[in-house]
């Protein structure tokens, strides 16, 4: 199992370490998931997301290749912007969901899920080869990039003097953050809060982590683990690969159409998605009564029929009630039930996201 450059920091902060996509990462620290979740919602939390992969695409045809490889549009994207996109199989199922950073003309970086890193790299390289974009240089730079996410309304105050991106989903390259040389800072995150993701060399990661927490202490910032990352993203209704997104699920069923540009001339998976009407839809639900529904629970309709499944479920620390994202049959209109340990509970549909910050 691999360690991130911040392993020692996690151990000394009381991190409860687990195997996540081949990396030893903290699921929580001594304060616990709920305290970490609240810190991010009310103040700020610092995450080690160095396990995420970074792949660069550069050279003649890089932009045109991305237009074909991914579902979102990049031709109208200025340098310094970040865009969420899906990467699909020809079947319309998802290879991965990614963030695309435009660094310049035909110069991009994409951030991918840790568990998919090798698969993604091979997929991208083979797609470039097959589609004739042989001049695009594709590099997996993940091992030379550490990534810290500082999330929460106090994030900006914790980083005085740094050149920070002003708008959501933009980034700046280079510069210093709290006296440490960084590779890039983007105003992005996976929590539903304002915040920054800071790309830094592995050598500088420990010093940056320590400095952020030392300055952040005054603002109530604490380190936060994978457990809080999951409850935060779930409240914000952000999809997670392997849960809401899978190779087997057509991407048109994930309620992510903002990132699928059907009017593009072509992209991998477009034909499959346009040929078939979506059969399922991603929706949110609250559990009525007691209990928590978890990923994989089957959804049952009024006649006892199977109408879908729970893709993510947890107790929402912000709402104080159990919440779930469902993959529900689009045509179904009745009451929805699920089983928890042999007992039936009813689910009540609610608009996503479960939580939206006040801007």
């Amino acid at each position, binding site marked *: 199992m691999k360690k991130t450059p911040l392993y020692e920091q996690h151990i000394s902060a009381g991190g409860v370490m687990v195997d996540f996509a081949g990396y030893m990462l903290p699921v929580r620290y001594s304060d*616990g998931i*709920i305290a970490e979740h609240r810190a991010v919602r009310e103040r700020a939390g610092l995450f080690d997301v160095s396990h995420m992969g970074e792949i660069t695409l550069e050279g003649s045809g890089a932009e045109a290749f991305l237009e074909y490889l991914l579902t979102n549009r990049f031709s109208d994207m200025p340098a310094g912007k970040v865009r969420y996109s899906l990467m699909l199989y020809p079947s319309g199922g998802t290879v991965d969901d990614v963030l695309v950073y435009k660094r310049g003309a035909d110069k991009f970086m994409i951030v991918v899920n840790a568990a998919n890193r090798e698969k993604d790299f091979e997929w991208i390289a083979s797609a470039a080869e097959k589609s004739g974009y042989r001049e695009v240089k594709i590099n997996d730079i993940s091992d030379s990039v550490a990534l810290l996410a500082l999330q929460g309304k106090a994030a900006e105050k914790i980083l005085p003097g740094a050149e920070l991106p002003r708008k959501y989903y933009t980034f700046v390259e280079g510069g210093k953050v709290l006296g440490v040389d960084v590779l890039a800072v983007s105003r992005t995150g996976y929590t539903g809060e304002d915040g920054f993701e800071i790309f830094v060399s592995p050598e500088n990661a420990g010093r940056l982590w320590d400095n952020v927490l030392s300055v952040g202490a005054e603002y109530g910032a604490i380190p936060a683990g994978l457990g809080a990352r999951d409850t935060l993203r779930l409240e914000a209704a952000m999809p997670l690969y392997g849960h809401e997104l899978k190779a087997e699920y057509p991407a048109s069923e994930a309620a992510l159409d903002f990132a699928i540009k059907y009017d593009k001339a072509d992209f991998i998976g477009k034909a499959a998605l346009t040929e078939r009407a979506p059969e399922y839809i991603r929706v949110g639900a609250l559990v009525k009564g007691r*209990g928590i529904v978890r990923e994989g629970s089957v959804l049952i309709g009024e006649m006892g029929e199977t109408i879908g499944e729970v893709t993510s479920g947890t*107790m929402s620390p912000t709402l104080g009630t159990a919440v779930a994202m469902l993959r529900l049959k689009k045509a179904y209109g009745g009451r929805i039930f699920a089983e928890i*340990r042999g007992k039936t509970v009813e689910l009540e549909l609610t608009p996503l996201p479960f939580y939206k910050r006040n801007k």
Partner: protein
Amino acid sequence: MAKFYSKTHEWALIDGNVAAIGISEYAAKELGDVVYVELPETGQTVAAGGELTEVESVKAASPIYSPVAGKIIEVNAALEDAPETLSSDPENTFICKIEMSAAPEGLMTEAEYLASLK
């Protein structure tokens, strides 16, 4: 009254032929924040080492095993609305009380249990 511990980190506080059942401080730490306790049903019988119920932390559901055999005669209904007390004060929070059908076997004293954690 005497308190005994199981290898699976539950405790039994024994008073005559009735045992109050809870989880150890160590178990509570391992579970993380408890957000839901599925209470067992009064009248149900359980074997020693059998699954008594499940508690849910934010991340996952974990089984709780019964350290003794017998019939459940009382459940701690306060846990329905305040499951977090199982995290904050585990050694003084019982989940249920069991009327024992046999003498408890294979349990550890507190000193033995604490030594086993090292």
